[in-house]
């Protein structure tokens, strides 16, 4: 007999404003084996945890159920709590009544309360059968991969390298430095950007712990915390950096010219070029896309003139395979493509430029070689590509107000005759020294006008630009002519981020930037163990915030790696020896060769087993089982969560794999997106664990449909999961066909963590379908069964 304590959390209103928590607690108190059931404002607080500790002592509890948020968020906290009371951390179960109940179903408080009861009952049923397991300890080394060599990646690499960790810094461009290399000065202190950045860049290749891989891309990542296997492709530069003296002779003779990315296409570069004046590694590079051709060798002019003999056309792309323990994502941002905002005429009118163009113009102006005239009347248009639903970007890019303030001041001060206007939506000077800096710009004579520019029209003869805007403070319509219009373009997620994010199963927030694990307390963690975020990959931010986040990410990575080992849930297969007849079917099905059969009985090698559960479906005797999610436990969950179902009501179960589908359901809840309330989500390590027998049991117990949600094959931790699931489903469908039950009641979806809408559509799709086809009749249900 178990002694269970149940705790229902209000989550400070997040739950209790929708769900009647007292009713849920009272319901739980009635259940057998439940000794005590309470509700509390904040279970995760010290008060809440102390409550559990006292009750464990006083009431001799041996199982704890907490109905609160997702186990992804506070699961670890409560595991620690029960552990500190001397119990196994695996006798604690959570009912996810926030992400899966109060948030997605906030419109239906009554039904949500009923669902919360079901979920709590399900957690009690599982807890009843919880085994007192120990954590599985795994070794961890000191190797870090940093993706992206902008200021975030550089800072993280230096912090980790200095702390004695082995760093692989991968940068897709031929030089590190990122967007910061392009800036003129930084706000609000007006430091020369290149001058403060270049010493940092130069520190990277000389640090003995940092291996710098420029012009390289991450092609594949597999594995987990402590063992990420990474494949990197290093592109050939065709120039040996050790020999290149940067004499420029090759550039003179090179016959291929293209716009210079570093100068935002304002100037021209050759196919052989120095990426930027402070490039690290400091070497010329041949851009093979624009080179006249290497196979066959079309030109060789650079080779002919290169005195040190640095050019080598026989370089090939190199594949580099490394194993790392943790990963920091620092892939940064892209500038909003201003041509998308057609009313401002960028790309069409020669005097409409972006703020990044202006950075470059100012740098050249300061160096005494201006690229073009700027004229005397200059207008800045703010929020181009930010806070703009028309272009699909609702977020504020945070830095534009201040960089416009900076650029306008630099322009004004270099020539006080200039008339400079900044047209803003709201001026956000939120940072340290920002408000003072803004005041200074006003003092210098820059005119800030509140109003969103409606249109920019070019006078085709004079090429001057007329702006139409309403000053929303004075209600005057302004129509004024300018020589130059500067668009303060926002920050967008870097297009290359998605590929790596998918490999690492990191989700995106609705603005397209990567999602942190917790907006307040885990701002640089992700929900994937051992993967951290640094800089603008997580959202727009300025340089000091980026640097702070990079240091935070490295310290979070050090926190994991410095211990030498980490704990893993003991989700592993085990054998009921009394049932095993040594048939070896499981051996064939194990993707990691973890099962061996000796003297007629199977045994599982715990170091090799990944806990996918493929062997469970293979065993004809039900002799194989999975710790933490045993057959009995999953069956008990299924039965309890369906208990409250009324006749004529339709209800379906969702088996959600921990890695993707369950996280996705949490993200949908966080986004307050609603979906079919007929669903009941059951968390499992992988759907391959759901044997045909369990599916049929679910249908027999009252489920009208089943949705299996699993990670996409390429991001799945379990190599054979998809084929196991497909074969399990086809077995079940065969039986359904025989019993004249619609096959579409069973669905299988492969998810990626970014597809919030896809999750909702699939849930509603099945929910609506089941409403249409009506619940399965009792007569048919009874006949369902499986013969092995």
């Amino acid at each position, binding site marked *: 007999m178990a002694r269970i304590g149940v705790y229902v959390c209000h989550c400070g209103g997040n739950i209790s404003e929708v769900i009647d928590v007292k009713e849920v607690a009272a319901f739980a108190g009635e259940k057998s084996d439940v000794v005590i059931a309470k509700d509390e404002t904040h279970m995760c607080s010290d008060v809440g945890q102390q409550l559990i500790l006292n009750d464990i002592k006083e009431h001799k509890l041996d199982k704890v159920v907490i109905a609160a948020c997702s186990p992804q968020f506070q699961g670890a906290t409560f595991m620690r709590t029960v552990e500190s009371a001397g119990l196994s951390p695996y006798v604690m179960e959570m009912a996810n009544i926030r992400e899966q109940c109060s948030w997605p179903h906030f419109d239906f408080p009554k039904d949500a309360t009923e669902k919360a009861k079901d979920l709590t009952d399900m957690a009690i049923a599982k807890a009843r059968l919880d085994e007192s397991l120990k954590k599985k300890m795994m070794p961890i080394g000191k190797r870090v991969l940093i993706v992206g060599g902008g200021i975030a990646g550089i800072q993280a690499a230096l912090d980790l390298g200095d702390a004695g960790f082995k760093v692989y810094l991968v940068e897709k461009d031929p030089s590190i430095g990122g967007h910061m290399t392009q800036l003129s000065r930084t706000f609000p202190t007006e430091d020369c950007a290149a001058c403060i950045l270049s010493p940092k860049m130069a520190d990277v290749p000389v640090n003995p712990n940092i291996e710098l891989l420029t012009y390289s891309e991450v092609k594949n990542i597999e594995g987990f915390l402590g063992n990420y296997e990474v494949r990197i492709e290093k592109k050939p530069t065709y120039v040996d950096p050790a020999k290149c003296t940067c004499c420029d002779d090759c550039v003179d003779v090179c016959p291929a*010219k293209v716009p*210079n990315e570093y100068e935002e*296409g304002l100037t021209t570069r050759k196919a052989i070029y120095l990426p930027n004046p402070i490039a690290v590694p400091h070497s010329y590079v041949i851009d093979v896309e624009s080179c006249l051709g290497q196979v066959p060798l079309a030109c060789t002019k650079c080779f002919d003139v290169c005195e040190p003999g640095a050019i080598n056309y026989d370089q090939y792309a190199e594949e580099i395979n490394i194993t790392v323990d943790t990963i920091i994502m620092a892939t940064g941002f892209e500038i909003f493509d201003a041509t998308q905002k057609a009313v401002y005429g960028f790309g069409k009118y020669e005097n409409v430029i972006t703020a990044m163009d202006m950075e470059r113009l100012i740098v050249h102006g300061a160096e005494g070689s201006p690229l073009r005239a700027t004229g005397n009347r200059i207008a800045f248009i703010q929020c181009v590509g930010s806070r703009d639903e028309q272009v699909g970007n609702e977020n504020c890019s945070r830095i534009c107000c201040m960089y416009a303030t900076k650029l306008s001041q630099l322009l004004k001060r270099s020539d006080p005759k200039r008339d400079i206007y900044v047209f803003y939506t709201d001026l956000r000077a939120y940072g340290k020294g920002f408000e003072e800096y803004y005041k200074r710009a006003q003092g210098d004579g820059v005119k800030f006008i509140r109003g969103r520019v409606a249109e920019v029209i070019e006078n085709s003869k004079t090429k001057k630009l007329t702006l139409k805007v309403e000053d929303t403070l004075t209600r005057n319509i302004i129509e004024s002519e300018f020589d130059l219009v500067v668009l303060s373009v926002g920050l967008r997620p870097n297009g290359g981020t998605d590929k790596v994010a998918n490999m690492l199963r990191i989700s995106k927030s609705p603005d397209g930037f990567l999602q942190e694990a917790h907006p307040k307390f885990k701002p640089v963690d992700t929900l994937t163990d051992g993967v951290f975020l640094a800089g603008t990959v997580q959202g727009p931010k300025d340089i000091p915030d980026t640097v702070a986040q990079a240091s935070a990410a490295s310290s979070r990575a050090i926190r994991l790696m410095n211990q030498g080992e980490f704990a893993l849930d003991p989700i592993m297969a085990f054998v009921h020896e009394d049932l095993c007849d040594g048939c070896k079917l499981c051996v064939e099905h194990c993707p990691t060769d973890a099962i061996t059969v000796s003297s007629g009985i199977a045994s599982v090698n715990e170091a090799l087993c990944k806990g996918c559960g493929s062997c469970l479906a293979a065993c004809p005797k039900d002799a194989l089982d999975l710790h933490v999610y045993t057959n009995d436990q999953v069956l008990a969950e299924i039965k309890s969560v369906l208990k409250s179902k009324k006749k004529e009501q339709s209800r379906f179960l969702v088996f959600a794999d921990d890695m993707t589908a369950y996280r996705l359901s949490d993200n949908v809840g966080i986004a307050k997106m609603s979906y079919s309330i007929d669903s009941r989500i059951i968390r499992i390590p992988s759907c391959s664990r759901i044997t045909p027998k369990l599916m049929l049991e679910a249908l027999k117990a009252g489920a009208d449909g089943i949705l299996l949600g699993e990670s996409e094959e390429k991001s799945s931790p379990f190599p054979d999961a998809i084929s196991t699931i497909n074969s399990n489903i086809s077995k079940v469908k065969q039986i359904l066909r025989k019993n004249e039950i619609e096959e579409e009641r069973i669905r299988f979806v492969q998810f990626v963590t970014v597809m919030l809408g896809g999750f909702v559509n699939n849930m509603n799709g099945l929910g609506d379908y089941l409403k249409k086809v009506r619940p399965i009749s009792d007569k048919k249900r009874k006949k369902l069964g499986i013969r092995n």
Partner: protein
Amino acid sequence: MEINKTRFIRKPLDWDKVKVPKGIVHIIEERCKGCGFCIEYCPKNVLEFSDKFNSKGYHPPYAKHEENCVNCGLCELICPDFAIWSEAEE
């Protein structure tokens, strides 16, 4: 201009000022057997078959866009009959 291949839609401000080598194409039409290698492989697409015939009955190439020639010398390297070469413009 190959700007369209990049993410930039504007012509760089110094585009016309940045010099690239220029070549003059010489063709010995009588040697040509019309294999078309030079036309096929010219990285700047300078050459094209002419309408006229040489005495062997082949169409020799002609420099349709000679202004694009950068004197890379690939045509000279690739011609099986030593019928074409380029020379730097002085």
